[in-house]
């Protein structure tokens, strides 16, 4: 399967270890990522959309048009990019008036949104086009005994009418993918709570992150598993900040799904950039080595 990867700014610039973990794991699934030139920021669904929704739609429309020229479906790796590009793709396919408006702008640079491709988070494309079984087949070093507390994040699943990925109240996609690595997905009571990043308050997101980390600690998971770099930011760097600000002793490793898959495929922690994380992943790598 050939896809156009949309890496987005958070991953390509801030967390390139996630890009590396995807590039190094998905070829074994028979996925070819054919990069294209000409993308900009998606743009981000929180700040830029708050600034001007019409501009947000225009920039997103341009990015999709760039991918349409290459002819393959887009796979995204960040829930923010997934939200922007999926929603924009949906709006521009459904609403001819808005599509015309956006295309008038795109015409100035010789581009056009045609509505010919799909946009999905790469985990969704893997589940639907490749299959979870195939993921399990690439595992050479099952992560036996590793307990992963999953954080779904909001924009992979919602709004479900547009995303059409899973039941947003009882999702299974990430638990199934984690299980395929040999690890054990563990339920915790706040698995569907938002990371709080978009809430512009000095203390509300803090309280949300504290509750989330404590929810995962309560079920004695070895790490948190997720698929969004913005959530990652809230939890990895976030724990360091919270430890200082509220005298906490949090040290829960936060691992991007494809880093888990990479470990299960026998890749070294360094190749997956685990050493760049603020919260050291020792707990995880030791358990994996012993498995």
């Amino acid at each position: 399967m050939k896809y156009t990867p949309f890496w987005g700014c958070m991953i390509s610039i801030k967390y390139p270890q996630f890009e590396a973990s995807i590039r190094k794991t998905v070829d074994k699934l028979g996925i070819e990522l054919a990069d294209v030139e000409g993308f900009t920021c998606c743009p981000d669904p929180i700040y830029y959309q708050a600034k001007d929704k019409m501009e947000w739609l225009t920039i997103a429309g341009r990015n999709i048009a760039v991918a349409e020229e290459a002819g393959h479906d887009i796979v995204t790796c960040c829930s923010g990019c997934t939200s922007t590009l999926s929603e924009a793709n949906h709006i521009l396919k459904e609403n001819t008036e808005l599509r015309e408006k956006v295309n008038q702008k795109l015409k100035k640079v010789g581009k056009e949104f045609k509505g010919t491709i799909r946009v999905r988070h790469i985990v969704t494309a893997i589940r639907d086009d490749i299959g979870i079984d195939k993921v399990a087949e690439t595992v050479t070093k099952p992560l036996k005994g590793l307990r992963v507390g999953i954080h779904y994040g909001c924009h992979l699943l919602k709004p479900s009418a547009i995303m059409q990925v899973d039941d947003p109240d009882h999702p299974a996609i990430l638990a199934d993918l984690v299980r395929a690595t040999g690890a054990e997905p563990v339920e915790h009571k706040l698995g569907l709570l938002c990371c709080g990043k978009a809430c512009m308050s000095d203390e509300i997101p803090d309280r949300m992150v504290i509750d989330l980390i404590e929810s995962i600690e309560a079920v004695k998971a070895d790490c948190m598993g997720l698929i969004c770099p913005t959530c990652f930011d809230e939890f990895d760097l976030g724990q360091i900040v919270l430890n200082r600000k509220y005298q906490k002793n949090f040290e829960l490793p936060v691992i991007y799904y494809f880093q888990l898959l990479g470990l299960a495929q026998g890749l070294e922690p360094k190749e997956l950039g685990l050493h760049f994380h603020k919260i050291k992943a020792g707990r995880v790598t030791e358990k994996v080595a012993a498995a």
Partner: protein
Amino acid sequence: MSGKLLANAVSERQNLKVTSTVKQVQLRQAEISFDFRQKLNDTLEGFRHNYCYQCGACVADCPAARYAPEYNPRLILLEALLGFEEELIGENSIIWLCTNCYNCFERCPQDVRPVEVIISLKNMSVERGTSPEEIAKISESVLKVGSTTFITPLVDRRRKELGLPSLKEIPVEELKEILED
């Protein structure tokens, strides 16, 4: 109609024990703006606020409401219906506490998509110059360099260490061109 609804909105806000008396005084003096309603109707997805029948289904799963008792998406919709311009798009509006989680979008039986109405309100606040600094900071970065974060030598080093290709050029000029009127 609005007399009774207005009284309800005021007393509901007070029932929420908004401790700041300043806020309550502001509320009593709030002027209802019909231009504001018209403007909201003309903002992308803003028209949906008209479909709200105040059932409150959007509240139970709202994390902002759970963590901030003064926040309530149903009341935001009520204030939109009443045309409370200052409350919604003045300085320090409560709308900025929304986490963009889309739970209200999932729950609303009227397809109001409260979060989308809130985003429309944010657009109006930006136009009025009352939005938080971060909005301008991040969107300016997108327009200036094409991304929300800056590329530093450390980024290049990390990418190299991980065996990743160097970053592609971002066509910022093209971005500016499509946004011009």
